[in-house]
């Protein structure tokens, strides 16, 4: 784990447009950022696209990072999530025809999920439609609320809630098919 002081030095190097510092910062945050990118990607190529766009954006806008307003991890996470959502949006249309006020809460046994591997769970999530996938990952994994998700996706909060509800129902059906 890289110390905060070293990260600060890397940030200063990136501000000076030092390629070495940029590469060092990229490799330092590669595991963290790739973990996020994978959750929004259909496959490795998608994840690589999200990562490359995100890091170019990070280095081009590093001068806007303010350490007094938050950590570098949170700043980078926001950029990678936004790139992930942008990537999904570019591949699919986000329907605004449906709205929901209250999200359904189907019963899903956690024990089943606990026995599954991360890759198997990810495969279930990838089977969701793109918009539903994006909302589910943003809400359930990244911890964003519906207002934040709606802003990032350019949809209403009601549409975001509808997608989350659809994701939960779909996952429940898939788990029931797999495990009865």
């Amino acid at each position, binding site marked *: 784990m890289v110390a905060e002081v070293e990260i600060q030095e890397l940030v200063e190097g990136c501000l000076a*447009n*030092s*390629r*070495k510092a*940029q*590469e060092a910062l*990229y*490799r330092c945050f*590669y*595991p963290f950022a*790739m*973990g996020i990118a*994978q*959750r929004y990607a259909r496959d*490795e190529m998608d*994840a*690589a696209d999200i*990562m*490359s766009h995100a*890091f*170019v954006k990070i*280095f*081009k806008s590093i001068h806007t990072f303010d350490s007094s307003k938050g950590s570098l991890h949170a700043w980078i996470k926001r950029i990678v999530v936004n790139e992930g959502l942008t990537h999904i949006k570019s591949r699919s249309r986000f329907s605004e025809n449906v709205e929901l006020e209250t999200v359904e*809460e189907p019963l*899903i*046994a*956690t024990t089943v*999920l*606990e026995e*599954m*591997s*991360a*890759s198997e*769970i*990810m495969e279930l*999530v990838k089977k969701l439609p793109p918009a539903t996938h994006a909302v589910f*990952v943003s*809400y*359930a*994994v990244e*911890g*964003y*609320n519906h207002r934040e998700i709606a802003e990032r996706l350019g949809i209403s909060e009601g549409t975001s809630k509808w997608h989350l509800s659809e994701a*939960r129902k779909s996952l429940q059906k898939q788990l029931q098919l797999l495990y009865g």
Partner: protein
Amino acid sequence: MNQRLPYEEVVSSKLQSLPLPDLADAIWARVERQLDIDLPTDDGGGNPAPPAGPSTGTVGWGLSVFIVALVSLFFLFKKDQHRVQPTTVINAQKVSSPQDTNTNRIEENTRSTKQEPSPLQRISAPSTETGDSSVNIPITSIVPDLADSAQTKPATLVVAPPVQDSGKKKRGVSGLSDGDYRIVPKKDN
């Protein structure tokens, strides 16, 4: 307020530990390429210079062609000089008044062609060092009757002592002086 269900907590913790693909180098190469376009750097630390674009290739080609042309001219001139230098005696076949419009020409013993450009032009062609297109080789022993350019064929007049240029190799046959170059007109009886 974000209220995650229990199973979503499990999903979240599981997906935080997804195995990572080994794409760090490949992705960095893409990022670096894009940064070289969007944020070019003068960082000398291991940042290789961008590859030569079409402009430097074109310049290199042009330079090569120019050098080849210069070398060709040089050899051409040298060849012409070899043809010219053996001419020590120029026999004028006919010398007449300027009013003679037909055959007031001087033939030389060498194998010079009739279609050759003016020896002045030939001799002056390689004189690029001085940048002066004028002749820098003194021409001697010109028959006075040839002063009228309308009456003569300048292509047949070749009088050229060796060029003694500071930076150039000595030309011509050694042992010959200016007096050796003379025109001996033939007299018709």
